[in-house]
């Protein structure tokens, strides 16, 4: 499975570079949030690659922190900045997300590892083993759920809302299709937790790969055409 994670990592960082490049000349905070979220995405898949070769406590902590806690929320925050007209609301949510993220980092850094870490098997997915190794307190579990719900609802819901607006007005076909792809891609890793509980531990890696490919394709499609002069439409486009 590490081949899939390697591909996911390369695509995630390439996607992040594309988003940061766009941020350089468009300056929207949503692009900055998406770029940061994609860096988290890439770190999450990169640590999967590391953990498929050797066990590292730091890699395991980073894997959980970025993959399970931060990625979706920061990507979703980008959609909040884009779609919520009241800047004060978006800024307040940003402060809450920042505080929650700092708390998440601290909680994960001090979370004890169990002796099961010594028996970590690099040939098995980390998604199958982490629960036995990383002691997750109630606060960690609660924060993971809240951050994921926030990120999933805002990112997927925001992309679907944008796609619906474009469809209803019959404008900007590329952005409508791009947002559909982004919504579908964002749903992929969001379902991973569900499938993990059903015992489909390998789905995580496939879903991460499909997710980032679909989102990158959606983003590229949405910004295709007239990349700079469409700012009037920025407020209704998740993938601007």
């Amino acid at each position: 499975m590490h081949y899939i994670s390697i591909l996911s990592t390369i695509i995630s960082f390439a996607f992040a570079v594309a988003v940061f490049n766009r941020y350089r000349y468009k300056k929207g905070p949503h692009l900055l949030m998406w770029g940061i979220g994609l860096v988290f995405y890439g770190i999450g898949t990169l640590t999967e690659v590391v953990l498929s070769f050797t066990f590292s406590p730091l890699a395991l902590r980073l894997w959980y922190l970025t993959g399970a806690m931060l990625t979706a929320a920061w990507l979703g925050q980008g959609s909040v900045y884009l779609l919520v007209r009241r800047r004060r609301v978006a800024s307040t949510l940003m402060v809450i997300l920042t505080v929650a993220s700092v708390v998440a980092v601290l909680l994960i850094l001090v979370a004890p590892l169990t002796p099961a870490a010594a028996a970590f098997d690099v040939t098995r997915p980390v998604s199958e083993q982490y629960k036995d190794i990383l002691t997750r307190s109630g606060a960690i579990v609660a924060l993971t759920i809240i951050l994921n719900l926030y990120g999933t609802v805002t990112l997927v819901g925001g992309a679907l809302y944008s796609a619906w607006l474009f469809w209803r007005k019959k404008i900007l076909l590329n952005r409508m299709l791009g947002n559909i792809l982004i919504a579908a891609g964002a749903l992929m890793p969001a379902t991973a937790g569900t499938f993990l509980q059903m015992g489909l531990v390998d789905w995580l890696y496939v879903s991460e790969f499909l997710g980032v490919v679909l989102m990158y394709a959606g983003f590229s499609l949405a910004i295709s055409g007239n990349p700079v002069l469409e700012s009037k439409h920025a407020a209704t486009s998740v993938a601007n």
Partner: protein
Amino acid sequence: MKSQPNRSSKRFAPSRWAERIVPVILGVLLLALVLTVSFVILSVLGMLPAG
């Protein structure tokens, strides 16, 4: 679906099949979102095995 030229390269006229399939796709994705969120909430409430 095909794009129309110019000003209005921003406007498009959906074909008949697109008129049907796009709302279905959006509906399916929305349903998937609702199911995913519901699954997480039910897990939190202890009505499904916790993760």
